[in-house]
């Protein structure tokens, strides 16, 4: 049994965007904190910190989750993909379509929107508009560009389906 005392730093080894990383965190720190402050990947945004806004969305073992509701110690031995890990350098087709659709305004919600949309397209390659809205309903945008975000996802699905 692994036990992490309250104040002690715990060494957590996880795979982030394909590379094994080891961080030292106290047990109450979230995966969101670990990714931003310890791994040094600031693409994942911190906003409400209680599961309401989706700015912190990452893929944990391939599933979209709110990294503000996961303890970093829970990620021991698991695989995390952040927005930085969706491409190997340039923009992904999905990110290009966000730009083409003019879906990005202040940009704060966008990493979370992109990760949630990528998860949707991987699990449902031809989503209907209601399915897109449902899949992104946990991602709030204060600039409220929802219509354009939906169009960007539709355009990416069409592109991936060779249309």
């Amino acid at each position: 049994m692994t036990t992490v005392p309250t104040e002690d730093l715990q060494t957590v080894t996880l795979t982030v965007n394909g590379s094994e990383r080891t961080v030292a965190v106290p047990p109450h720190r979230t995966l969101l904190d670990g990714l931003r402050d310890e791994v040094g990947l600031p693409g994942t945004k911190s906003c409400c910190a209680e599961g309401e806004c989706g700015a912190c969305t990452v893929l944990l073992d391939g599933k979209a989750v709110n990294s503000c509701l996961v303890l970093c110690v829970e990620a021991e031995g698991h695989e995390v993909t952040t927005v930085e890990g969706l491409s190997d350098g340039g923009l992904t087709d999905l990110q290009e379509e966000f730009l083409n659709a003019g879906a990005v305004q202040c940009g704060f919600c966008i990493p979370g929107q992109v990760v949630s949309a990528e998860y949707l397209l991987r699990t449902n390659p031809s989503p209907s508009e209601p399915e897109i809205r449902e899949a992104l309903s946990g991602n709030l945008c204060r600039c409220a560009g929802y219509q354009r975000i939906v169009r960007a996802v539709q355009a990416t699905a069409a592109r991936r389906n060779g249309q």
Partner: protein
Amino acid sequence: MPKYVRPATRAEALAALAEGGAAARPLVGGTDLLVGLRHHTVEPDVLVDLKGVTDLPEPIVVTDDAVRIGATYTLGELVAHPVVQESYPALVEAALTVGSVAIRNRASLIANSCNASPAADTAPPLLVHGASVTIASADGDRTATLDEFFLGPRRTLCGPGELVVRLDLPRPAAGSGSAFRRLTRRRGVDLATVSVAALVDADGAIVLGMGAVGPRPLLTRTGPVDLADDAALDAALDELLAPATPISDVRGSREYRLAMLRVLAKRAVLAAADRRTPEEMAS
């Protein structure tokens, strides 16, 4: 701030819970627990993560008589399961209203009941489907119906040192149907103002589960009702809804909740009745 424990076996998990007593909490998805820790509404000394325990009951087992769900089964997995979709439509409708896709990918079905919010969305459908739970402690296992399990706001039969390891859902009788309806201030990430699940059997007997209209989710039932007779249905609803004692809070006044409860209950009953398959086709 609590310490974090990751047991590998059920015995280790129960030992860690027993040792921590009232100051220890099981952790599965953390979607209630981490928010509670942030707001200091729960202040445990120990979090016992159940996700690495290898000898807990399987996440889901489907038999001819029942569907059995384990402590780590998530709402995301539940809503995608073909047998659950077919046999428990009210439960799928309710689970789909919980949070967002990302919340459902973490949130466990069992903890939605263990958290014992009077507004927990999956409670009304689990009640009408006759769910029971198995509670484990260092002294052994015991079972209880979900109706016995809910004691009051944030209070269940599962005490310090204990753990719900399994939830059993009997397969619904042939020719019955179920539906869930809820009212929220805004669609999406908000708790229910009122929620209702209905199960109607082939003879028109009604079972109702209600959320957010009392200190705990409520379960009531009547004998066969002629659903084509509106006055008879209204009279049955008078009886079914009588135990509801909602409070007034930010989500709605007592009067508004009672009025909406009647509307939603009637809609849920009629929708459930519409979903019934003729008995000869159901087998």
